[in-house]
């Protein structure tokens, strides 16, 4: 196939070729941004500016409500752990970071509860499948906290007490008590 060469005429006069007008326009754009952003230096965040940067440790972008952070274990209305050691979450976990050892509960209405509930935050891939697998609303990832850095691997393994320390009372229905999710609150 023969290549066809099409010559595009470029009617570029001295005005365009000297780049003078283009240069001035460009300077106008950058100077406009400089002027618009300058009050930020004097007034701080109150000033209207185009600056997208956040001064991170002081300013944080709020996380969306469904953000997945550090795990926590929820409590029943009487303060007991909601978890019934059903092993749904370690089964669902793709990283095998949850280990549960169950024991008999003292409460006659509850069959089992975890004796050991450990999550290895170094192995956790923050997928949230444990939360979706949980039938009891016992495990949540809604703390908004990043896994904290640690100098020893053992420190990154969260035990039951630590997970419960961030826990709150959940009113979701469990064993016939609480609010059924379909009911209006």
């Amino acid at each position, binding site marked *: 196939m023969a290549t066809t060469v099409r010559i595009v005429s470029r009617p570029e006069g001295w005005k365009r070729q*000297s780049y003078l007008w283009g*240069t001035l326009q*460009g*300077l106008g*754009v*950058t*100077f406009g*941004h*400089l002027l618009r*952003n*300058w009050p*930020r*230096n004097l007034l701080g965040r109150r000033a209207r*500016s*185009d*600056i*997208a*940067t956040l*001064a991170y440790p002081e300013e944080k972008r709020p996380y969306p409500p469904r953000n997945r952070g550090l795990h926590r274990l929820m409590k029943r209305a009487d303060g007991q752990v909601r978890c019934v050691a059903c092993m749904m979450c370690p089964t669902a976990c793709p990283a095998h970071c949850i280990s549960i050892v169950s024991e008999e509960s003292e409460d006659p209405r509850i069959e089992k509860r975890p004796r050991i509930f450990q999550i290895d935050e170094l192995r956790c891939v923050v997928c949230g499948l444990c939360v979706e697998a949980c039938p009891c609303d016992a495990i949540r990832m809604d703390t908004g906290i990043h896994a904290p850095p640690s100098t020893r691997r053992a420190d990154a393994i969260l035990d039951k007490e630590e997970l419960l320390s961030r826990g709150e009372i959940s009113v979701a229905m469990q064993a016939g008590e609480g609010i059924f999710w379909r009911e209006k609150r």
Partner: protein
Amino acid sequence: MSGAQLFSYGQPGFGIAAALIKIVVFVVIFAMGLASLLTWLERRQSAMMQDRLGPNRANLGRWRAWGLLHFVADALKMVFKEDFIPAKANRFLFTLAPILAIAPPFIVLAIIPFGAPLCWGQMRAAVPPGACVRPVDLQIARLDVGVLFYFAFASLSVYGTTLAGWASHNKWALMGGMRAASQMISYEVTMGMAVLAMFVSYGTLEPGAMVLQQGPAPWQWGIVRGVPHFIAFFLFLVAALAETKRTPFDIPEGESEIVGYFVEYSGLRFGMFYLGEFLEVISSSALMVTIFLGGWQIWGASVLPNWAHVLVSMLVWGGKVFLFCVLQLLVRWTLPRFRADQLMRLGWQRLLPLSIANVVLAACWQMWIR
């Protein structure tokens, strides 16, 4: 001769003391201070132009001051970094090159008048222009060759860059040095021609006399004397941007893509190149303000007492130089880089013929129009 006489007006002791004070005030405090400020301002201003925040965290306790102290942190970093000299480098020239890069912009500041003359013994009275009995010029060296002195020393900084490339024993540094040499020599011609047009108009090369020939009001400045004078200003501005080796004329160093002439330098020696670049910005701005923008003159300030007049004129001069530095930073962060062949074509085929024609135009203007 007693000590008191030696330091009275007109005696050598007085001249030496006055020169030392002027050097301290102008070179050490003003030029070094502004150059340090520019190292921070360049990053901060570019950030503001690009909708970023820029460096703002060199705190001194709770005192943040928009990150102004970053230059202190930078200086400390450069002092404590390893001073590396390549094994096969020529140690003498390698050491000499940064000195040759930073010294010329300091030296050329000597001819710049940076304030109204101080009237020795009449400082509390308002002194009209020309009525001063014992003036002390706020200019370190009053040379009749003036601007030629500037060019003589400004062209010395080519040696700094070329030697840096050559002494490093690095092919890429050498090529960077060659690019720097070809660029700086090309644009010096245009720069000289631009000043020649102004010389035709002023009839003198002495910067102090040039300032006095321009009036204090903006419509009396050199830049608005006529068409060739404005063209000369524009040509000088472009050539000065090229002389400072900054974008759009930064092919000698090419920060991010092509290796530049100071690639083998580290620590304080690199710092000297870095600071030398900003000093070149300041000295070229100072010369532009002096030749084209009325220098230190301020309208109506001569009715003030002499000491206040001197102070105000120094502030006005410093403000003009600062604005010019900001303009140069603005250009540097707006325009993309030229290719080497585009740079040479612009220099030799566009700016040089234009500047020569401009000299002729300035001469005609001087003969027939005013």
